[in-house]
């Protein structure tokens, strides 16, 4: 997360991989699944959040605070 965007916006991982979000902005952000399957809640500046990508498929997510921040995790 930097400049109020997810970087990279799209990431492909294998099932069982751990995805790590690092907030390089000075504002809090969230990584929240569109289908509400997971939600980081607020990640403060310089904070880190991890998710074990369990379910294969394409998972869209966004930041609750800045909903124009959109990302996709593809789990194979």
């Amino acid at each position: 997360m930097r400049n109020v965007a997810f970087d990279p916006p799209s990431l492909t991982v294998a099932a069982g991989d751990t995805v790590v979000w690092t907030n390089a902005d000075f504002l809090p952000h969230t990584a929240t699944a569109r289908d509400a399957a997971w939600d980081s809640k607020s990640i403060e500046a310089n904070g880190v959040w991890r998710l074990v990508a369990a379910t294969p498929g394409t998972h869209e997510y966004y930041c609750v605070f800045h909903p124009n921040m959109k990302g996709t995790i593809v789990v194979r």
Partner: protein
Amino acid sequence: MSTYHSASTTGLLLGLALSVSGLTACSKSETPAVDTAATATPAPAPAAPAAPAITDAQIAHIAVTANAIDSAAGVVAKKKATAKSVKDFAQTMISDHMGVNKQAVALATKLGVTPEDNDVSRQLKSGADESAATLSGLTGAAFDKAYIDREVAYHQAVADALDKTLIPNAQNAELKGLLEKARPAFAAHLERAKDIQAKLSK
């Protein structure tokens, strides 16, 4: 910071737009003035070389003032708003604008710059004071709508000021960098406020 009050859409927008256009006019003295009522008037003598439109100390003051105003407006809205989307938005305004201001104050301290009061800051502040009355007289859905309308106009005005005046005129690279870093947050707030505005008017 607690002395700032929420701002009225009209007062704030006009105040900022006026000051920004005034600054632009100063910095571009060669731009021909079009005045249909005075076409017979000879062209004015060339103006003296333009002084810097605005100094870093003034830019820092505008940034701190603009953030303080919106986070204070958020504090009021978080208490008074009824729609959850509006309450949540207000909370983001509090945390984001306080976050930006922490950075701005830290940078000013590091650079030894004392933020300097100026016309834009004063207009921001008076617009904010003026609207405290407007918003304080409203409750319920009327408050929600007035607050969000104001937020849309406010963020649009600040984003324009950043693009046209503050970022281009910032001399110090770190100050310019901070403004550029804050710019996408204003865009995100604007988009979210517009989205809420559209839903409230349904």
